[in-house]
């Protein structure tokens, strides 16, 4: 028997709080992954939720967005809630379809760029070595090429490629182009995280258990990255919605479908500003801005959960301000020491 009088050896420190986790609750798997509700998150979710609902439902209830039978350039009124365009299109109908189109482009591009970011970032970070060198080089090249010009070149090129048929100027193709050009930033973030997760004991433990590398990545590592992946997806969607608007504004967007970007482009070529038809360009601009703001708010909220330091920052700042007012130094305040 070990001598009970021996003092505990003075080596590794004991975790104090963890041992106390005797409390046993049956939390479901999803529940613990959900970020806790904060003001930012709630605001973001409401904004994005309303816009998504609008894009999904409204197109079913509006008139044909390409019905030019209406009088041209009507200001907002009871018959046409948001007025009409120069060609007599109903702006509200256009807005409904445009929102749907932009959300479609954003989601497709976001998913594509997330998949590419996972391949380039997580594989590079996990495997290291030569594969890492090659993938990181490609990532860095994508990172330094300015985004929009590259998208413009590819979009212009693809649209004049023979043989693509009706696909050539579809919003799906525009989404693909945006996805293919927008993954590099996320890949850098995911690579860094994968590198640090790679050395975690539970990853080493699954190697010792005999798990294959790809299974370790997709079953052991990626589920723990869900909040980060969600943040990257949202980032990708924002990038794509704005990118699509930019492309369309320059006349390189999809022609077959209506998006918020094509609306802006129509407004510009129809000299909406010059003719004072604010109802033509303000609504699509406002939806883009709101969508970007809402998604960003959700992203900030996720960031705070992934990175608890950010949650402490406002508290620490407040404490500092209070202390300064009280005329005391707080050099040894523990928050960031």
């Amino acid at each position, binding site marked *: 028997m070990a001598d009970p009088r021996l003092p505990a*050896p003075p080596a*590794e420190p004991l975790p104090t709080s963890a041992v106390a*986790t005797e409390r046993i609750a049956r939390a479901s798997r999803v529940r*613990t992954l959900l970020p806790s509700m904060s003001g930012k998150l709630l605001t973001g979710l409401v904004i994005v939720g309303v816009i998504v609902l609008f894009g999904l439902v409204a197109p079913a209830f509006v008139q044909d967005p390409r019905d030019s039978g209406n009088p041209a350039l009507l200001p907002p009124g009871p018959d046409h809630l948001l007025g009409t365009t120069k060609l007599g299109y109903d702006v509200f109908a256009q807005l409904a379809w445009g929102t749907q189109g932009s959300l479609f482009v954003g989601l497709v591009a976001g998913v594509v760029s997330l998949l590419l970011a996972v391949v380039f970032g997580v594989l590079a970070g996990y495997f290291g070595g030569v594969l890492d060198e090659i993938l990181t080089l490609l990532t860095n090249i994508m990172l330094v090429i300015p985004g929009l010009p590259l998208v413009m070149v590819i979009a212009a090129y693809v649209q004049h490629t023979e043989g693509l048929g009706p696909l050539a100027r579809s919003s799906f193709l525009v989404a693909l182009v945006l996805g293919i050009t927008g993954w590099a930033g996320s890949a850098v973030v995911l690579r860094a995280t994968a590198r640090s997760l790679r050395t*975690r004991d539970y990853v080493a*433990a699954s*190697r010792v258990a*005999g*798990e294959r590398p790809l299974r370790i990545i997709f079953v052991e590592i990626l*589920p723990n990255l869900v909040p980060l992946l969600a943040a990257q997806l949202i980032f990708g969607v924002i990038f794509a919605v704005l990118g699509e608007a930019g492309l369309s504004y320059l006349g390189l967007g999809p022609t077959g479908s209506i998006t918020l970007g094509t609306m802006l482009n129509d407004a510009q070529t129809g000299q909406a500003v010059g003719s004072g038809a604010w109802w033509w360009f303000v609504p699509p601009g406002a939806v883009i801005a709101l969508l970007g703001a809402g998604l960003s708010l959700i992203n900030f909220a996720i960031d705070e959960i992934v990175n608890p330091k950010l949650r402490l920052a406002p508290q620490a700042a407040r404490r500092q301000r209070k202390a300064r007012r009280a005329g005391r130094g707080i050099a040894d305040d523990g928050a960031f020491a």
Partner: protein
Amino acid sequence: MTTREPVGEPGLEARRLVRDYRIRSGLRTSTLHAVADVSFTIRPGRTIALVGESGSGKSTVARILSRLETTTSGGVLLDGVAAPMRGAALERYRSRVQLVFQDPFASLNPFHTILHHIERPLRIHNPRMSASEVRSRAHELLERVQLTPSSRYADRRPHELSGGQRQRVAIARALAPGATYIVADEPVSMLDVSIRLGVLNLLAELQRSEGLGVLYITHDLATARHFSDEILVMYRGEIVERGDADTVILNPQHAYTRTLLDAAADPDRLGRLREEVRRSQ
């Protein structure tokens, strides 16, 4: 079964293990000899304690034995056959040699259930086993490490368990592939003092009933003496003293061993410590 590789005497042998790390500090690089020429053989049914203070290279030895780390020179032999680093041969090696990590708060995946941690090695090393058989084997293993009734633990996730319970899960996971050699890297150092003995007793009981060969890594000479047949004292990557457990404790030859013993059991020191504790209250 006719093309069996040559098999030597049963045992897990570390033969002249050397592991150097390059340390870069600014422009200069230096070499750290984390493990410098370490040899020993774990026999079935026997326990060897590897004792040394933090940083002496114990974990590096454990990681080399479990093939998480390469050697600079020297190698590992299982029953006289060189241990592989990859492929199907590595999988076979892993079905026989398993590692229990030091920190049970880090070695279980927070996302997965306890059952997942036990079922995966069972599946990997028994590809033909049916799903229901895997499940019932996993429950057996949980009962085996005294997580009873197993149904109370199977669907929980690691954060819902205490440190001692988690380390029991880690032990069950190590047993799952059918391992005959267990490397336990300071298995209780992260646990509350009051539950350490329970986990060590479980390891000792499993070792006896399954005839396991165990490498018990620790910084605590008292438990090393109690739970093992042989003690190796490691200091700065080298084995400075080795021998029968009682002999090493009762008749230490090397100055470092004596220091370790003093630090642990010096009655004067103990008295002083008690005095300090009393005064601080």
